[in-house]
């Protein structure tokens, strides 16, 4: 089986580590990944069969962009999901 390794570099100011690991969460279990931290950039190495690496790289990039968007949205939002969930649970607790 041919093994391919793809390297994806992302600027550290674009995405934080948690969001990055969130993307790694979704990588196919037949891919081996490695996360390297540089001064200015993250580097993600994905290795596996040629077709799978191709496919997973595409998906990974989509996930990165989605997570960057999520991060920006949560900053621009009036309040966070966590606050709303907390309020919901407080209302529930009061009710009973």
């Amino acid at each position, binding site marked *: 089986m041919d093994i391919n390794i793809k390297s994806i570099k992302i600027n550290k100011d674009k995405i934080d580590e948690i969001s990055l690991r969130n993307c790694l969460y979704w990588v196919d279990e037949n891919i081996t990944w490695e996360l390297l931290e540089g001064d200015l950039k993250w580097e993600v190495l994905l290795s596996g069969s040629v077709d799978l690496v191709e496919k997973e790289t595409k998906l990974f990039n989509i996930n990165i962009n*989605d997570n960057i968007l999520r991060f920006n*949205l949560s900053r621009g*939002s009036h309040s966070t999901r966590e606050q709303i969930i907390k309020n*919901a649970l407080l209302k*529930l607790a009061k*009710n009973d």
Partner: protein
Amino acid sequence: MINYTHLPFNFKGLQDDKYLVSNLAGQHQHLSKLDFDNLTHAKYNQIEQKSLNSLESKHFIAPKNEAKMRESIIASKLALRIQNSLKRPTLFMVVPTLRCDHDCHYCQVSRVTENKKGYDLEEKHIAGILDHIEFLADKHIKIEFQGGEPLLNFNFIRNFFDTAKIKLKGKHIEFVIATALGPINNEMLEWIELNNIHLSVSFDGPEHIHSNNRPSKKFNSYENTVDNIRLIKKHFKGIDVSLLSTITKQSLQHPKQIVDSYLELGTKNLFIRPLSPYGFATDTWGTLGYSANEFMNFYKELIAYIQELPQDIIEHSALFHLNRIFSQATSYVDLKSPAGIVFGAMCFDYNGNIFGSDESRMLWTSTKADELIIGHISDEPKNTYTKPNLIALLRDTFVEVNPGCNDCVYSQFCGADPVHHLATQGDLIGHKARSFFCQIETQMFDFIFNEYYLNNQMRKMFDGWLSNGS
């Protein structure tokens, strides 16, 4: 011009460059890429007017001075959804016997042969079971007899029914027997019809699928099922029979034939159930099982076929997903958050064990993991439902905070399946990227949302199903 801000939402890119957004109020909106980009880049007033109005009505955006009020509204709506998921259980399963007259390949309960002794639920337990039900239940409940083949212990069913009628007098009970119809006779059918009992019968499709999936040493199982269904439809019209089809690898090539076989039986209600990949030995799954992609290819073809046909056929798996989308209904205990295990259903096994779902009963059969047992029928109800493992079931099945679920656009419509993840991965939450359950549900919701918003004919069909009630 109104000064808008946005409120928290989840999103996903769908087919044809469209986007779906959803929020904790349980609402969703299908958007063009342009509108989505305008939304996410705070260019609210550039959003197309109709979409803008919709987004505002659904609390995706709000005038800045209303943001706080709308957040309170969303929190209340979320609290309501959670509260609805925490109502008292409505489904009570009772297993009169583990004896069976079939050898279904996908059986997950370690059934035993028809005449084996020691595998019946003793009638002395009827009072205890009813005590537990009375303690747990509200006014409207469903009591479902499962097995093995429940009719092999018909006397138990009859006695249980008679006693329940007295002991649970104030409650509104729907009785169901899940049966393969092997032992059925006129006497049973008359009693079933007289007492308004429903039947739930597995019908996997044409003979080469049904008999293959569900063989029996006693008879040709396809003929047995079909002949008995026809008999009931002809001579016992008062009996409501619902059919369901469990999908195995053998079924995957034949979506249209499965639909046709249902139409031939004179029924317009289908219920397609995928297999769960646990409780089987690995090689058995290899013979029977499939990937989520393979299942969805089959399922899409089946739905497309139904839509083309002139008859008004309803596929109920799609319908309960639609109900989850449009009203976050909690009537289907297998797709809700917090999970339906214990909080939606309860199962009283032939040996007296109490489980929180049929799946946990099955899983216990193969693993003997005692943490799945809630208690025993002979225990006092008021001491039974306080164990710490129940707290875990509640704590670990909130999609809003589970990794893998919290950012998912479908989270408010989907649910938690803790037993599935316990079985396949060893913990109640599971790693969703490796989860067959998540793959199937994600693809189901992808399919339904894409079809609903991009295919007018399909949308019409779905709306028709929703309007007729479920």
